[in-house]
């Protein structure tokens, strides 16, 4: 076998952000289902929360390349 452990590390690092993004979208869908007219108000928050969590996964990706 050949390859680098960084890939395995990135896989583990992506678990947390994956769950986080899922929770954010689930919360937004729940909120929108209960209060459809609030969708416009919460959409910027959705994207900001998504971006803030997603960047953690991307840090993992960058580090997987940077540390090789």
């Amino acid at each position: 076998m050949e390859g680098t452990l960084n890939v395995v590390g990135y896989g583990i690092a992506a678990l947390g952000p994956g769950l986080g993004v899922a929770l954010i979208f689930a919360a937004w869908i729940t909120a929108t289902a209960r209060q459809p007219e609030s969708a416009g108000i919460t959409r910027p928050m959705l994207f900001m929360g998504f971006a803030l969590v997603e960047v953690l996964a991307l840090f993992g990706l960058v580090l997987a390349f940077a540390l090789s």
Partner: protein
Amino acid sequence: MTDSAKVLAADGHFPPGIDSFDFRDWFSGLSGTALANVFTTITFAVWLTVAILIIFFLWAYRKPQIVPTKRQWIAESAYGFIRNSVSIDLLGKQAGVRFAPYLATLFFFILVMNFWAIVPGIQISPNAHIAFPITMGIISWLVYNYVGVKKHGFIGYLKVTCIPPGSPAFILPLLIPLEFLQNVLLRPVTLALRLFANMFAGHLILLVFILGGFELLNSGNIFIQGMSVFSFALGIAMSLFELIVIVLQAYVFTLLTGMYIQGSLAGEH
């Protein structure tokens, strides 16, 4: 296909790596001189982006009319989207109109820069090199810090950014360094890294599927060659997925810059 992709496909160097992002000079005589890396696909895409934006908006606004013509309507609704749904929503009527030109410029520049990632013939976003996102991150950093310092004064601005309202006194020694690190030092880095890493990962995924298709085609076995169809199909599907990421990242960059300006402008608590 990009020229790096051609080189890779010819070499049979399948797993694409960081070297897939190195673009050769268009004029090979320039390599090694001071003008190295001045005429590449990357710089070409950047200049083309600037040209497209300037020419489009000048052309759309050449003879503005009260009842908008079709091209004027396109430009106005594109600008109005950022102005109303990002700038004014976040910053309020007065400051929103004031910062709308910066945010709109940022949005359209990043949007078109990102869009090169899926344009056939170029297929690399300049934002996949850290230099361009970090420059935009630093400009945004200068803008929101300048605005904050101008409004609150230097000490007052540090107080607004570093002390969250309502925090008890005993936790402040821990909170102030953390907030300073996060709000003043790390914001441009995360802003730039988010855009960069998205474009970097997008390009890498496209390379994996498209070069993987060529790799399968190059194998001797007819059944394995047939499988390359699926690889190319996924390459096309991922290009469409990239389109979502492109628009989303341009929007997120603009939105976060707007939020940082909003934080700087917020009154004392």
